[in-house]
């Protein structure tokens, strides 16, 4: 149950990354999981080359941030106002390219990824390993940092403004385009944290994130895709639910179907999510 909470931390990070991009641009980034996967490979390559773990961690965050910004500026910007199908096509294309690039460069063999936390059980508790506790701590730290960033810094305020009302923001001198790019960068960095935290558990291979991405989606939808805190909470909740269902209801083989059921269930019964504002479309 508690290890479900640890997985939930990963889903919460992915959900948060998705919501960041959704809020700013109203796009759902299908390539989010592959971006995180690629970042994790970069971290692996650095650790393999002899970097200490936390140095590699920091450098990976910087790299993921820059990669996110670059992807927004180069690939997503030209289709910003295009029909939904075009955007979905571009994201799926991105997903394919990142996936195959990772396979190409790092090969498809499954790699193990080191955990920064000691491998012993946590203070003799038989329910959680140290890595799981570390995961929860790291995710919570990320969530708090993101919260502080958005709530208390001028840049965070500008980004929120740009997402909420691009036209007025532009009038008061906010560079809306760059704010969107920063949003992508942040989402890339948060995703990278999720990837690096997940990798010791699911092992490193180019397809490691497909399930996690799905749970992230489910979490984001459950919490409300317009509400970052709801999404993070939703992510934790999905992790919890997944573990309970996996252990008691459907068995581990059908775990992914839980995500499917959550997604369809939320979309059918409460499309705004548990904490999201109900949106009314204007005709």
């Amino acid at each position, binding site marked *: 149950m508690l290890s479900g909470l640890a997985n939930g931390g990963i889903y919460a990070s992915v959900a948060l990354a998705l919501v960041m991009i959704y809020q700013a641009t109203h796009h759902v980034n299908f390539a989010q999981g592959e971006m995180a996967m690629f970042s994790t490979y970069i971290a692996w390559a650095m650790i393999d080359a002899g970097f200490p773990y936390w140095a590699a961690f920091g450098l990976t965050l910087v790299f993921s941030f820059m990669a996110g910004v670059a992807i927004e500026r180069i690939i997503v910007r030209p289709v910003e106002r*295009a029909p939904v199908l075009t955007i979905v096509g571009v994201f*799926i294309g991105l997903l394919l*390219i990142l996936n195959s690039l990772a396979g*190409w460069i790092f090969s498809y063999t499954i790699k193990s990824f080191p955990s920064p936390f000691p491998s012993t059980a946590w203070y003799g508790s038989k329910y959680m390993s140290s890595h799981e506790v570390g995961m929860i701590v790291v995710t919570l730290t990320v969530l708090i940092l993101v919260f502080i960033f958005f709530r208390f810094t001028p840049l965070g305020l500008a980004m929120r403004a740009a997402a909420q009302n691009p036209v007025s923001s532009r009038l008061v001198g906010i560079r809306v385009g760059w704010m969107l790019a920063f949003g992508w960068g942040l989402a890339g960095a948060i995703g990278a944290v999720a990837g690096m935290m997940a990798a010791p558990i699911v092992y490193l291979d180019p397809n490691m994130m497909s399930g996690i991405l*799905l749970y992230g989606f489910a979490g984001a*939808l459950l919490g409300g895709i317009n509400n970052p805190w709801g999404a993070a909470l939703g992510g934790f909740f999905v992790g919890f639910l997944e573990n309970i269902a996996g252990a008691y209801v459907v068995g581990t083989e059908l775990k992914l179907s839980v995500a499917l059921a959550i*997604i*369809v269930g939320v979309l*059918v019964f409460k*499309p705004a999510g548990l904490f999201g504002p109900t949106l009314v479309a204007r005709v």
Partner: protein
Amino acid sequence: MAYAGLSLAIFRYVGIAAILAVACILPFAVGGYRTSQFSQVLIYAIAVLGLNILTGFNGQISLGQGAFYGIGAYTTAILLDKTAVPYWATVPIAGVICLAAGFLFGRPALRFEGLYLALATLALAVATPQILKFKGFDHWTGGVQGIHLDPPAAPFGLPLNTDRWTYYFCLIWTIALFILARNLLGGRTGRAIIAIRDHPLAAAAMGVDTALYKSLTFGVSAMYTGIAGALGALLSAYVSPDSFPVFLSIKFLVGSVVGGIVSISGAFIGALFIEFTPNFADQISKAAPDAIFGMFLIGLMYLMPRGLIGVFDLIGVQLRRVAFTKRQK
């Protein structure tokens, strides 16, 4: 002008007849392996056409067609494995089951717009292999091992080996389904389907039952994909949960976009592309086909959203214009 129109129509029929003739001779011109590759092309063409009807004409984005392909394939496999139903009868049954499944999935999907539908269908595609592996269905699905089938033999003592007969069997289905799609989309129903894509509110105001049409289109699209899956199961004579990964659905999307998502004949170009690209690209690297698919997807979205068939259309329009101005002089 009437004359020009007539000659164009004749030109078109001659073209179609020529393509059909080539398609009929093909199995005798190439080897057994190539023949089954071309059967696969026909099967992909049906599946891509199904996606075109749904996404291109009706505007509902689906990333989960692989799930219906899987349902169709498993229907055929289970029927052949557990019952005495002849193989040719399993294909329409698979179609009907997928029609129902698609209609039922399309019903709640009505609430999803654009991205949300893409999301829900993607979740469906990701979950499919897991559901197929479910222990409770083992008795029917054979679990992870899958089901082995006997390849169909030619009827009436026709002098055709299995590869060739499977090819002709697929060809018959392809022709029938393409004519059906043409008639469906060319008439009143097709106009309603397209109107829903272009302006749902206006379509509703004109008296189109948008909810019914949208879920029916979903069902028809699933039917096409399911029939393709059933034929695919007959062709490969084997089904297993891992034959229907999420990348299968993405493959269909790539085929759709490459051929031209708002077209019927474009499905063939898309099918040729997704069948033969991996063949050539595999020589570079195992990862190359996906990379090429991805680049084509992004590149086409930027440069020619109407796909290759759109380019051919443009060339045709230009030629016609040139011919017309010449006659004016």
